[in-house]
């Protein structure tokens, strides 16, 4: 009796296994990304396509909110439940790649017929590289430039967008119109990654970088920005507004210029009831070195995956579909060999041309395993200077002390 009961259970279990698996042996890949939380994105849509097209691979896709993906993955990695493929914001990538949590794919990429390392822009590629080895691939990229309201410019007698920060201050003064609730410019100096995202390019333009922030040039531009706020050419709320809200002020016609990126274009085409354009991020002096922020996400295979071959096949599939990501999701490919299609919307096409040029100057944040601490030192210094709690140079010096402690 006992025996036959056990036999029955065993046959039931085998039956269940057979029912769950088609003839071939299947491999399950876990993919985590922020896509699909509020709307479909690259990761979830193409994962499903790959799943449908490949009988031998099952994709378990999980959409994780932006604020949680690093923490979730850290926890999962520590407890041995990490996904096979994950997508991080580019400054977060080094936290994992530097400690061997990501699979080294240098050789796989070199041997791949689909992925060509040479086609990627330098900035995005740096963010997936650690000590000369490739630990991931850029998923898409973005950067920032300066949007300007052509109607307000014409009304103020201005024709060309500003090219230096001094010019920005000069134009902002002319464009500010308190009677009509118009600020000269809006940007984001928020206490968070967005603050660093917009301010680090200034440090880079001045010859510095994440490891050297107390430059004369950066202090000079901070003083200009402080002047913008103190004189009322920019709202004091740039210190708490994120980029999306800050650009909303521009779209409603309440700011004549805005520092922001290509992710704003579609909304701007719809919302802005005026003629607008985009220019490259201004430099410190005329003809000085350019820089801009590098945004966007990266792909990586986690080091403890049991199926590196299948995971890399999926990665190749994502790469092979990159000519579709702009038309379907509005994301810019991080590669030079994909020509963006003309949309027919004049302002949008003009803006994209500028952002494509700007991308050549975009520099990554880091890569550094403790990027978040460096970033906090930078945005804290920016806020201290802009609120007048410290002089620009003192604030940057203090940040430098913190950063030296991280680098050494």
């Amino acid at each position: 009796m006992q025996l036959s009961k056990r036999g029955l259970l065993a046959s039931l279990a085998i039956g269940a296994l057979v029912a769950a698996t088609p003839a071939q042996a299947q491999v399950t890949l876990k993919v985590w990304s922020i896509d699909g939380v509020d709307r479909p994105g690259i990761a979830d849509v193409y994962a499903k396509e790959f799943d449908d097209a490949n009988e031998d691979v099952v994709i378990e896709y999980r959409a994780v909110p932006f604020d949680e993906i690093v923490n979730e993955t850290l926890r999962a990695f520590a407890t041995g439940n990490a996904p096979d493929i994950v997508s991080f914001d580019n400054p977060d990538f080094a936290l994992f790649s530097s400690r061997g949590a990501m699979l080294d794919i240098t050789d796989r990429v070199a041997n791949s017929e689909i992925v060509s390392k040479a086609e990627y822009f330098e900035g995005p590629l740096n963010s997936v590289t650690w000590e000369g080895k490739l630990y991931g691939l850029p998923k898409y990229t973005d950067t920032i430039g300066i949007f300007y309201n052509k109607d307000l410019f014409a009304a103020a007698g201005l024709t060309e967008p500003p090219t230096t920060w001094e010019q920005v201050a000069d134009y902002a003064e002319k464009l500010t119109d308190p009677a009509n609730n118009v600020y000269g410019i809006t940007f984001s100096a928020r206490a968070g990654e967005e603050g660093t995202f917009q301010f680090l390019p200034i440090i880079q333009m001045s010859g510095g970088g994440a490891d050297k922030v107390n430059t004369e040039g950066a202090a000079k531009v901070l003083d200009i920005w402080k002047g913008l706020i103190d004189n009322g050419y920019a709202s004091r709320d740039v210190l708490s507004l994120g980029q999306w809200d800050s650009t909303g002020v521009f779209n409603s016609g309440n700011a004549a210029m805005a520092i922001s990126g290509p992710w704003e274009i579609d909304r701007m085409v719809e919302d802005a009831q005026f003629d607008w354009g985009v220019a490259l991020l201004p430099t410190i002096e005329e003809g000085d070195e350019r820089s801009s922020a590098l945004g966007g996400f990266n792909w990586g295979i986690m080091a403890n995956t049991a199926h590196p071959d299948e995971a890399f096949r999926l990665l190749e599939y994502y790469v092979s579909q990159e000519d579709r990501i702009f038309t379907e999701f509005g994301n810019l490919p991080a590669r030079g060999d994909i020509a963006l299609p003309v949309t027919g919307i004049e302002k949008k096409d003009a803006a994209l041309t500028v952002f494509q040029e700007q991308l050549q100057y975009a520099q990554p944040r880091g890569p550094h395993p403790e990027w978040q601490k460096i970033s906090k030192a930078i945005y804290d210094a920016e806020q201290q200077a802009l609120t007048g709690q410290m002089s620009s140079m003192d604030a940057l010096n203090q940040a430098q002390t913190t950063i030296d402690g991280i680098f050494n």
Partner: protein
Amino acid sequence: MSRFFSGLRDGVGFDILLVGAALLFLLALAGAPLVYNVLMSFQQVDMFTLGALFRPFVGVDNYVAVVQQPEFWLVTRNTLVFVFGSMAGQFVLGFALALFFAQNFPGASTIRGLFLVSWVMPGLVVGGIWSFILAGDYGVLNVILKALGIIDANVFWKSDPNFSIWAVIIANIWLGLAFNMLLLSVGLAAISRDLYEAAELDGANAFQRFWTITMPMMRPTIGAVLSLGLIGTLQQFDLFPALTEGGPANTSNVAGYWSWQLSFQLYDFAKGATVSVMMFLLVLVASVVYVRSTRHEVRG
């Protein structure tokens, strides 16, 4: 054996069972995390040891590092301002409202019930609403203050370092007001009417009645309200991400939010744990003071 079971149903065994269950619950869900947290504050933690219990021991290095952070003293000052500002506001206004509704005018209990709406609202929602109200350029509060002629230019509540911590305090007072009022109302209702009548017959005026009857009779309630207020304020988190994110330049950052930032934004779990241990010591001191001050109390 049967005696053992009957003891479980009825007798000392049953008592031990009940106490044991509660004790086990406390040890597992409050004691263990606390010990783990303290342990973590003396260790070096990184992503590979995140799930481990035994990690490299670093002594008081984390504590030294936290105190040496440039923002440490600013955060300490803000925490004290936030805690005492919020508690004072919540308590004084809550007490005033409780006394007001104790007058039993028509509709008093209904309106008092409506005040509880603020207490059932999630902190993030409250933060979102106050974020609109306190916005600099188009905020409702600025419009009202300007119309009343109190201010000439907009006050940037969330972005001005002189006001940022107060922006969070204002929202927190609103959030905790109803809870304070409710507890104090219960205390007021428990005071016998006879006392007031007798005092009135003896010719005590309203102020004297408040000072010699209400206040002494309310002491245990006030002690409880203040200690709960301290705990509630120290653990306040939702309002910070919704309003200021601790900015500008940490001028509205407090220990609780900083601890979260260190752990979950900067991924420095050891320092995050260290800050929370420091907070725990603060609460411990406060609760010792509270327990001592109410120990010899004669409860009415």
